[in-house]
């Protein structure tokens, strides 16, 4: 290793250490690699969206392939940065984050897309009698969304949002419960179920209805790692797919495991969330090509949409955005 490369590596490790302080302790990537361990940074608490990961852990799908997986991260973890800095081998992100990262010069690739249909939606009170996203925006009121999310920009371009007062979403449904004209972003596996339990009558319109449908809960890694460690990556994805197969067939045990780690979500919500996300994960395409598979066409569409929204300079080559591990020899024909 040259001096320059060594100093680059020192800085990268230093940065990674800084970034990882809130996320995980101790071990760096080099130590893990020698022990056959990999780390994956989650971007949220253990919830049904990560069901397949926990099921794979529970059924030793990783272990029997010689992989020791450590799950780290959590809400607010800078997952893309942690992966890029090499602090963790894998992370969970949304497909639009992958394209943004590539545009910003980071070599991030997707290797597994949990949701074929994006599980995010806009929740309103059913009593308002709205029938579509267009209805929601035409009716006006307050819209609580995370500032800067791509789909808000997409909405602004394709709908008339002038009647909406857009405010930050603070990860609490309390404002929704208190305001009959408030609409807010949700993950179909979480907030609508919580709102119903609190006595509200929520109705959800998926953002995918607008035509903006990036893959979600995407497992990411660096392009360099994907190219260099094809076999290990194939094993990893195979284990992940096995875990998801198990979770889709019976989420009970993995839900119990996650419930111990995330006491804020009760068993009922886990059960309902797992049921709600099933059709978004295993649609016709996933049934044919396998859970987590991705299509070139979908990445091309996303790149084009993000470019039209001005969020990226030039749309990245869709082929660079993802690695279809299980079919490295022959990429599947895009369905749809």
């Amino acid at each position, binding site marked *: 290793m040259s001096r320059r490369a060594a100093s680059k590596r020192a800085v990268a490790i230093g*940065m990674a250490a800084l970034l990882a302080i809130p996320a995980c302790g101790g071990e760096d990537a080099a130590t893990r690699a020698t022990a056959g361990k990999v780390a994956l940074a989650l971007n949220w608490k253990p919830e049904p969206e990560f069901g397949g990961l926990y099921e794979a852990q529970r059924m030793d799908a990783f272990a029997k392939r010689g992989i020791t997986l450590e799950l780290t991260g959590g809400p607010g973890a800078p997952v893309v940065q942690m992966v*890029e800095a090499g602090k963790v081998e894998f992370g969970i992100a949304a497909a639009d984050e992958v394209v943004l990262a590539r545009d*910003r010069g980071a070599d991030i690739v997707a290797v597994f897309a949990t949701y074929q249909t994006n599980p995010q939606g806009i929740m309103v009170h059913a009593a308002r009698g709205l029938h579509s996203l267009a209805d929601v925006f035409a009716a006006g009121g307050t819209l609580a969304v995370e*500032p800067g999310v791509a789909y808000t920009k997409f909405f602004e371009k394709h709908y008339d949002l002038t009647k909406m007062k857009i*405010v930050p979403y603070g990860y609490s449904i309390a*404002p929704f419960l208190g305001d009959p004209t408030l609409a807010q972003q949700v993950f179909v596996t979480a907030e609508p179920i919580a709102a119903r339990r609190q006595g509200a009558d929520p109705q959800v319109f998926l953002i995918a209805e607008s035509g903006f449908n990036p893959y979600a809960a995407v497992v990411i890694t660096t392009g360099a790692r994907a190219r260099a460690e094809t076999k290990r990556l194939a094993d990893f994805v195979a284990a992940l797919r096995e875990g998801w197969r198990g979770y889709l067939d019976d989420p009970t045990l993995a839900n119990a495991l996650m419930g111990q780690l995330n006491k804020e979500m009760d068993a009922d919500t886990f059960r309902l969330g797992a049921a709600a996300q099933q059709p978004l994960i295993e649609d016709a395409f996933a049934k044919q090509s396998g859970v987590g598979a991705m299509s070139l066409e979908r990445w091309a569409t996303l790149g084009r949409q993000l470019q039209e929204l001005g969020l990226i300079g030039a749309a990245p080559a869709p082929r660079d955005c993802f690695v279809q591990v299980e079919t490295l020899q022959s990429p599947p024909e895009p369905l749809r």
Partner: protein
Amino acid sequence: MKPRFVETFVPPAATFLLTTAAAEFGIRAAGVSPLLLPTPSAVARAALQHAPTLLPALAMTAQAVAIGLALSIALGLLVAIALSTSRWVERAFYPYAIFFQIVPIVAIAPLLVIWFGYGMRAVVAAAFIVSVFPVIANSLAGLLSVDPALRDLFRLYGASGFARLWKLSLPWALPNVLTGLRIAAGLAVIGAIVGEFVGGGGLGVVVLEAMRQQRTDLVFAAVLHAAALGLALFAAVNATSHFALRRWHTQETEP
């Protein structure tokens, strides 16, 4: 005038140039990804390119900070005066003033939206909550430290309560009040940004958007705008302090 100017501005300017240059070359030489740490020149470019977003956001944050800080000064002083009227009142309430000072604003920020609704009012409330206690604590310390001999003198001459407050206690406490204001000015900016994270608007939302869109350079640019706002307020308090105190407090007359 000239040597004074050199003395005041050259050392910080030199520090600024040296650290900026070191950061620029260090980051480039180490090949750090712009996603992790942008170079100062990239931050400057982002600031220029996004000026149409940053400047209105800065104005919005500044407005909330100004209102929050003004409320803090007015109410903080009144509370300090009330607490200084008697030992019993002070003992009854001062511990709670300290307690509220310790309440982490980040933790209660989401509640502000429920209490005050989205928008400017929640942001002003956040700026007020974090900035009022330094005003109370420092003003009270000043009001309670009045020279007992002077207090006796005022009593001997039969000065009214108002005269004692207006002509003795408040002028005596002024340096402490201004120290409280210096602390409050910086905190009000932090409070407003945290308030904007939940209530919307201003530099707070620019930071969130830039984070979400992986524009680390723009995050830094927005943070620098917020810091500049805090610095401007600090300078304003210092200027006030200079004009108000240069006649009589040694702290301001000594070079």
